[in-house]
């Protein structure tokens, strides 16, 4: 539930007032066309401000007055085509102005990745990263339960979540469903309709279910450019767009998206602006059926055979993220029992460049995460695989180089779990959730 009541616009400054600047060297609006700016008291019972802004240029600024806050956290999410592209956060001590830089060059530590602390939380889990008041969290859900994972004093700690819905966890998604710039959670299981866990500070509260039936996959984007995040649900041969009213209440928009017989065994969904028209496009992965796509047209989706090669794969998960540093989303595909694929976005069409960019043989992955976490600017990758797979370092040649081998894992996310300004890898293993940092 957003706490806008705790925020007040003021007309004059005071001693504890600073300027929060949001800057970027990325092209606007080609690489960033909206920003979600959040500012929240470090004390979890304090105030919270969050708002999504379409932008035509950067930098932009916001004057932030402490009021009764001693310290605060500011964060910004940069969106492209209605889909988050990157996050940056910084603490505010109200002693000096702060710039949140959505830099095109995202770097991490120069050293080797190494585990921090012990494994916590459920084993063999699915992961989703949530940004918001209280800092960055990871929600882990496994067959034995679920946990909210945070980092404290250099180690992960696990906190309680609401009771997961019945059935086996199938998918989990983090997205700002209520427009406060905090990421809420959508939990997908085999035995219940998708359930929303809304973020309140550093906790989650179960709220509404979406639809009345279990689904196999979910993806999120602001499909109709009304500044809230909509959801696409899929399962079997059924594909549905659910429109958000801005307060995390969803309505099925049957006329806006239909599977129309093009799919029969949906297993994964991904949304991202592939053709650079500022609309989120939809890629649908299936179990032993061809990869397919729909182009977004600002509120509706139309089928398109030209976007992805109709290769028949048994797809476990899809990741649309910039893998080659050109700000366009590329598609990483985890395939059951077969080497992962990497399809690179070239002028709105996804081209299989697995053999070009991935070390061969490519690992058999459960999930893939991208982000800049070594000393170079190029995006790097961490792969959840059994047994463990080599982490990948991006290179200026566009080809990933192998790094150390990460532990065996079922899922991975790259997120700044300790809010120190650089990315970490959070992996779901048979021992629990672990933290790798450089």
């Amino acid at each position: 539930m957003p706490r806008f009541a705790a925020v007040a616009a003021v007309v004059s400054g005071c001693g504890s007032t600073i300027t929060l600047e949001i800057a970027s060297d990325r092209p606007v609006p080609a690489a960033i066309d909206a920003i979600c700016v959040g500012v929240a008291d470090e004390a979890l019972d304090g105030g919270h401000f969050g708002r999504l802004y379409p932008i035509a240029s950067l930098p932009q600024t916001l004057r932030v007055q402490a009021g009764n806050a001693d310290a605060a956290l500011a964060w910004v999410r940069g969106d492209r085509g209605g889909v988050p592209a990157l996050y940056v956060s910084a603490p505010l001590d109200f002693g000096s102005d702060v710039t949140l830089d959505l830099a095109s060059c995202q770097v991490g530590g120069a050293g080797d990745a190494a585990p921090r602390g012990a494994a916590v939380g459920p084993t063999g889990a699915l992961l989703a990263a949530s940004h918001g008041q209280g800092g960055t969290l990871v929600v882990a859900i496994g067959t034995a339960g679920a946990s909210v994972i945070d980092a404290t004093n250099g180690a992960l700690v696990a906190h309680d979540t609401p009771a997961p819905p019945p059935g086996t966890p199938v998918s989990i998604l983090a997205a700002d469903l209520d427009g406060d710039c905090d990421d809420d959670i959508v939990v997908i299981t085999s035995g219940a309709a998708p359930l929303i866990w809304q973020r309140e500070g550093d906790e989650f509260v179960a709220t509404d279910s979406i639809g009345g039936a279990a689904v196999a996959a979910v993806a999120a984007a602001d499909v109709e450019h009304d500044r809230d995040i909509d959801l696409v649900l899929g399962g079997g041969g059924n594909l549905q767009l659910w429109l958000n009213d801005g307060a995390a209440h969803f309505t099925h928009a049957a006329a806006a998206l239909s599977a129309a017989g093009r799919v029969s065994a949906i297993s994964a969904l991904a949304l991202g602006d592939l053709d650079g028209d500022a609309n989120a496009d939809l890629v649908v992965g299936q179990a032993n059926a061809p990869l397919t796509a729909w182009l977004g047209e600002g509120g509706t989706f139309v089928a398109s055979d030209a976007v992805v090669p109709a290769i028949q794969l048994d797809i476990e998960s899809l990741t649309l993220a910039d893998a080659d540093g050109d700000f366009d989303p590329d598609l990483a595909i985890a395939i059951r029992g077969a080497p992962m694929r990497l399809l690179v976005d070239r002028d709105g069409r996804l081209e299989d460049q697995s053999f070009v960019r991935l070390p061969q043989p490519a690992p058999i992955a459960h999930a893939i995460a991208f982000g800049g976490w070594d000393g170079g600017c190029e995006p790097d990758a961490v792969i959840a695989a059994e047994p463990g797979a080599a982490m990948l370092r991006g290179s200026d040649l566009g080809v990933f180089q192998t790094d150390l081998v990460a532990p065996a894992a079922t899922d991975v996310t790259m997120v700044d779990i300790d809010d120190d300004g650089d990315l970490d890898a959070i992996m779901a293993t048979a021992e629990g959730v672990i933290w790798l940092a450089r």
Partner: protein
Amino acid sequence: MARALILLVLFALPARADDVSPQAIELYLARGQKLFEEQEYGAAIQTLTPVTRDARATRAQRLRALELIALSQFIRNDKGAARATFERILDIDPGYQLRDTSGSPALRQFFDDLKKQLIPGYDPHAGADLEHAAPTAGTAGRALELQVRVTRGNVFDLVVATRRRGELTYATSPLSPRGDNRWHTRITPPPSSKPYVLEYYVEARDAGGATIARIAAPDQPLEIALTAGAVDTAAPRPWFTRWYVIGGAVAVAASLGGVIVLATQGPGPGTLPPGTVTVTP
């Protein structure tokens, strides 16, 4: 002697991938094609392999290299390697049609069998069908919109080729996919003080760049009768758009802004609404 050694080393070193420009990739392809035609299949594979691994090679360049490598492997009776290479081709473009002009029935059979295994519903004789409602008229120098619908087939690229009647060569413009298998482009015929006829045809290509369908043809183009039209001559610019007026206004605004900032405590309100927020009132 020392110079000879250095030269030898330079020739022996493989070209760094980041030195490879699109033109250099074309050179590799031409060299590989020549080696293939000279039946130097091992050397052809060696020459073409870097192209398949270069991230900057276009899709068509990569497919050309892969096909020549697959053909070389097939001819050398390395069926396992040929199959793996053909699979890479079909991963890039499930609708790929072989460029090979040898007409080898064994090769065609091998490739078609592989396609049948990998591509559900594969039709070896499939091409593509296009629908297009031709515009009946237009104006020279003014944008003209064209839309084409692909009703069947695996089309990677659609282009429209246009020329003014009487000219020999066509200029091509790509169409962009817009969903529902509709492709769209906007072309602006050259301005002219006299009416003229614009000739055009539409061509569908697969990922390798091969033509798989056409509407009309270079020697039998469609026609649009264009009325005379020149590029709009710009109207005199209003006084308030002149640079010195804008510059003066900016200077005045900046001065006023400075006065306002000096007159208040702390930083000015931000550019994002509501300008100022209080974290915990």
